[in-house]
């Protein structure tokens, strides 16, 4: 099973494939503030990650997620639960 750091790296890689995303992002980048994503962009980006990692992240879990590392930690927790 992938660790949170490895999942963070997957997410950063996925984000960088979008040319509109700033080049200097890292695991500690804040998704709304640093990536300038609106509410719909956040949900669409999470959907990409869900399909990449074959996991579903319930929308209510997104409220607690601020950074890319937070998202990776949530994914690890969801995988551990299931």
């Amino acid at each position: 099973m992938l660790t949170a750091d490895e999942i963070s790296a997957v997410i950063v890689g996925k984000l960088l494939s979008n040319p509109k995303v700033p080049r200097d992002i890292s695991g500690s980048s804040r998704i709304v503030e640093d990536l300038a994503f609106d509410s719909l962009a956040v949900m669409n980006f999470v959907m990409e990650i869900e399909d990449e990692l074959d996991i579903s992240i319930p929308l209510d879990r997104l409220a607690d997620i601020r950074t890319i590392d937070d998202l990776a930690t949530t994914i690890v927790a969801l995988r551990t639960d299931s």
Partner: protein
Amino acid sequence: MTLLSKFDDVHNRLNSLTGAGGRNPFDVVIESINSSTTGIIEGRETLLFGTNNYLGLSQLPAAIEAAREAANSFGVGTTGSRIANGTQSLHRQLERRIADHFGQRDCMVFSTGYQANLGMISTLAGKDDFLFLDGDSHASIYDAAKLGTAQVIRFRHNDPENLHRRLSRIQGEPGGRLVVVEGIYSMTGNVAPIKEFADVARECNAMLLVDEAHSFGVLGETGRGAAEAAGVLDQVDFIVGTFSKSFGTVGGYCVSNHPQLDYVRLQCRPYMFTASLPPEVIAATMATLQEIIDRPELRTQLMDNAARFHAGLNRIGLSTGPQVSPVIAAVLDEVPQAVALWNRLLDLGVYVNLSLPPATPDDRPLLRCSVMASHTAEQIDRAVDIFAEAARDCGLSLTPKD
């Protein structure tokens, strides 16, 4: 940061829309209505191509008369909730007629279509249940997800295979599953593949709720919507709809064969804790329902008109979705371009809706048009000509297709 400083951003965004002398697109006033297809805006006669009044029934004389009679007999308001003092004989009559029209056991009538989605979805999918939403769902569906306590999972727009994958991921977990899709998507006019969604729902033991807000009176042999058109009306657990589109009035409803709908009435807060529809609206809605049943040719006319307008916009080089439906959205690249075109259209006497991200999919601005059965061929051709002229005036380089 004060309580009100969060509105600074709204202020700035609104200013960026009106900065170059443009109108506030959220504050257009229709000064008077001449007919279902024309009204007076800024003192000018304007073609209405953005009212959702698909069958033109808001102005139906029989409905106006029915409203007048109901107000005379019952007064103008119920001043009460459906479960307290707000149910009159008219409410039950309308529920019976809608249930019969759908061939379903019962119907609940809500005060708005928004509340019908808000109430049904939040009440059906409870704690420990899973709610599956199409990614392009209407705000009322997202708000229902927030009001409810279920775990909410989004699937890719109009993609039954993606829904299947997401349902499969939770296979074996306890709790019910509710899948929510719309017949026609309000922003793009996309039609959902209801048969395929019904197949996936059945295979994965999920219930299916279809919101036919924009498809009722439009799709299906008797106008009952996308599920009827797909031949799977009997495989849908709950159909939700609104009176504020084809019915031409205001309100919402849900029909179902599940007898538990009786108990939803006693659990559903957006149904219980608001006043019921006033008698004149109920009476007018019964009259427009009868018109929809008696005059199937309205639907044929609507689809012919939609095809004519869709072809017209494509001919002058505007991009739209591929499917012909009464919602036709011209897709533009940049917000300033869409704002300029929308303003110029109104100058020239055509009213459409300006829809901006994030309320639109794919981050693209839309000029969302709705076609009516009552538009004449001349009005449609005139609107297309004005689109071409406005695009030229705004310096858009379109490549005509003929």
